[in-house]
């Protein structure tokens, strides 16, 4: 149960939130090719290190925000409301 720093609530147990995965940019659905779309759907950098990821404060403020987390150590830095 790691601590996730919610920019609104303050530090919270990760179980109070839902991890929504790495931040991935979405191509324009009206103009992109199928393969560009599939890359958005499926391909993930998945690094063993720092990632920018989205969390949803499900049990608290119900806001989505991004944090930087090191997937090798679970260390967390920075917080940015979205």
């Amino acid at each position, binding site marked *: 149960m790691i*601590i996730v720093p919610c920019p609104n609530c303050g530090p919270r147990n990760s179980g109070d939130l839902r991890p929504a995965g790495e931040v991935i940019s979405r191509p324009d659905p009206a103009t992109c090719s199928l393969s560009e779309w599939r890359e958005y759907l499926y391909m993930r950098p998945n690094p063993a290190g720092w990632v920018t990821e989205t969390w949803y404060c499900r049990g608290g403020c119900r806001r989505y925000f991004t944090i930087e987390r090191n997937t090798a150590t679970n260390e967390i830095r920075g917080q940015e409301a*979205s």
Partner: protein
Amino acid sequence: MTNRLPAQPGEVIDRSTSLSFTWNGKQMTGYEGDTIASAIAANGVDVFGRSMKYHRRRGILTADHWDPNLFLQVGDEPNVRAGSRKLQAGMVVSTQNVWPSLKFDLAASNQLVGRFLSSGFYYKTFMRPQFLWPLYQKILRKFAPGGEIHWETSTHGAYDKRYVHPDVLVAGGGPAGMGAALAAADAGASVLLVEHYTELGGHLRWGDDAQRAKAAELAAACEAHANIEVLVDSTVTGRYDHNWIAVNQRSHATAPERLVKARAGVMVVAAGLIERPYVFAGNDTPGVILAGAARRLINLFSVKPGTKAVVMTANEEGDGAVADLERAGVEIVAVLDARKGESIVAVEGRGRVSKVQVNDGRMLSADTVVTATGWTAPTSLLNMGGDRPVYDPVAARYFSNSLPSNILATGGIAGDGSTAELEAHGRATGELAANRSLRRRHDRVSQTARSGAPTWAKPEEVADSRTPLARNPHPECYRSTTHGMVDFSEDVSSKDLVQASKEGFDSIELMKRYTTVTMGPSQGKLETVNAASVLAEANGVEMADIGTTVWRPPYSPISLGALAGRILEPVRRSALQDWHEAHGSTPLLAGQWVRPDQYGDAMAEAANVRANVGLIDVTPLGKLDLRGADVPKLLELVYVNKWQKLDVGRVRYGAMVAEDGVVSDDGVTGRLGEDHWLMTTTSSGAGAIWEMLEDWLQTAHPEWDVHVTAVTGGLTSINVAGPNSRTLLERLTEGVDLSADAFPYFSVRTGKVAGVSDCIIWRIGFTGELSYEVHVPSGHALHVWETLLETGVDLGCAPFGVEAQRILRLEKGHYIVGQDTDGLSKAPTAGLGGLVKLDKPDTLGLPELKHAYGRDDLPILVGIQTVDGSIVPEEAAQIVDGDQNTILGRITSSRMSPTLGRSICLGQVDPSLSAAGTEITVLMADGRRIKALVQEHHAHFDHEGARQRV
């Protein structure tokens, strides 16, 4: 009580309170304060059980929690640690691992084939003939170690949990741990002090007068301190990321065990040291005990451990044991000083030690052997914090290497010292812990929205200026010149380890897996260091090059009951569920909801809807109140169809696909006002869709004016269905004209029903009948429901349940997302062609939708009827290619239709079979292949919808 000594100065037993219990059926008595083992030992018992593989007799070894030979069955509880569990009156205690009896154990014949049970034994044998392996396995399973489950009793749910938020958590209540707790508390930190045993004091408890006096003084100070909470008979079982710490509290007034979950600022590990056995031939013979065991038995429990003892000592604990044994009247046959190179080579004896061979060639007669050959530092908790302890050959034990800033070590795990030195190091550690944790608390208060700003200044960070504890030299005593037991609970000897190394399993991890050394209940606390030393010797390398295996949680085993705690499995109930249950409904668990499946006869309930009017509680439908000018944009984004032009007062069916084009949800959404909408979702999808809408609104379109409010439980949803539904509602509705012209199909009105205002009425038709879905403010729902039933008596009004609704919807051919579609079903499969609009700038899964509609190979959902209408194919029955086994589809829904008097189905089929009139073959579960015909419509009944549009 043959082995009970006269009163000892530090004894913890209360001789005024006798407790009777049984040991293997024999009546015995002990005293309040005894452990189970001390009470049994006081009664003159030497043999407590049999070892796991060889079924060798085993007696007391360590006389504490970790004693591998003292796992006993107590009543319905298996594997009780008799070395630390306190005796209670009436306990029924018995041995484990014996069959048929402790004295005559058939499995002990394993000793005769001992050479076959060496390491890797299983992998190399029982192989040929291969067909016999299952038989061998059956026999092996009979000899599994451990206690027995009593199936008639369960304590599941009686356990308990608790959350705590201490600034400092101290693991270990010896002199260093208590010193740390007091210093941290004095500095203003809140402290949780956790002690594994039932009293504070650590090793001072079985020490001399001065040590016991010091323990009492510190313990009293801790108990009295307002900032300290003391938990005894409790173990820190695990340290997880971000100092999330598990404590198993074993004795508590209201629960058999309690899991205390702590988020600690700083954890101070003061776990002390665990004494290590010495490896030599016969070292598992009853009568061979550790120095600490001798001292605890004599000093705490006044139990005489033997009559004639040989003591091998390498340290003060052994020296102290000699003094204690003498005081207890045990004849000291010899003291072998390991610091001078003296050691034990082997012992002989079966039920008890009889002879001791010494490395100077002597063969001594004794019934007791006491060894004090050094310590294992239980670095488990440090290990869980990322530390990789390092071996120090001078001190002959492991020390922590690099700790994160929120973990500090003190006491024996950090070094050696006098009681005063240990306490002083603990106090310095406590001060440091307080500084770090108060800084953290300050941050936490500052960052937490609900708390005000801190009213105190954040302390300046102080450096770690503690004077390190010394590391006293200690001889490296691991193994004698003979081979003996390394892992007592797994029956793994040093010989096994040497052999494993020779076979190439020469790293500690591979050796562990191959021989199972350190994998038993004490998880390496007694065995790890000896195993590493044997491996180092076998590999011809230094101890430091061996490393140790990774110590994983829990530090000490914890009951499943405690981990589970109370059974908190929330169930959602509509405002009408009590009524349903009072009126004979069969409960149906659907996701988190409990619902009425039926009230006795689902077929009759369905028929009543077709003939008269029925009421069903559909509250679990997800309901979202949407407000704002940009709601249509949101709806166009998340639904495949268009919404901009929906008029106020109208509702529309919407279907959703996910970004990968797979059908994900559906429901009806209505426009209640210019900027006010009510959206419904499937029951199971409600939560996820709410979160998805918020995601789009917050991250992609913060410029849109939309407010989403979940109102599922606030509105109790009652579907009034059947030809008489309008008549019924007209009797109770105020302010709404229910006539067909004024309130047409797929419309919404707001008004008063049965005197309740703010009811939202939708005219829709999932059942295919004229029907209205009335959404009632839930505090008044029971009144409306009961009034509808009373008022509709003459109209044949009756409740119907989920099963009747399933029948009715299948007659109408309405698909259910997740049942008639699956995790790969795209929009064309579900037949959404008429709904999907591809000319939108953005909608979920748009490229996948375009791709899907360019294909002709996707399965198609169709209505299906068997040729023989009396046969109801099972849901999930496969559609196959005639008498071949090629799969061409499957039945997704099926029921007997009360309206049509025949079976009806929906199914997914290969597109080549999707044309109306195609004959298909359905493989029944019993193997029959039956014929069925693909229908023109999904609906089996009134496909034009005439009945619902009246």
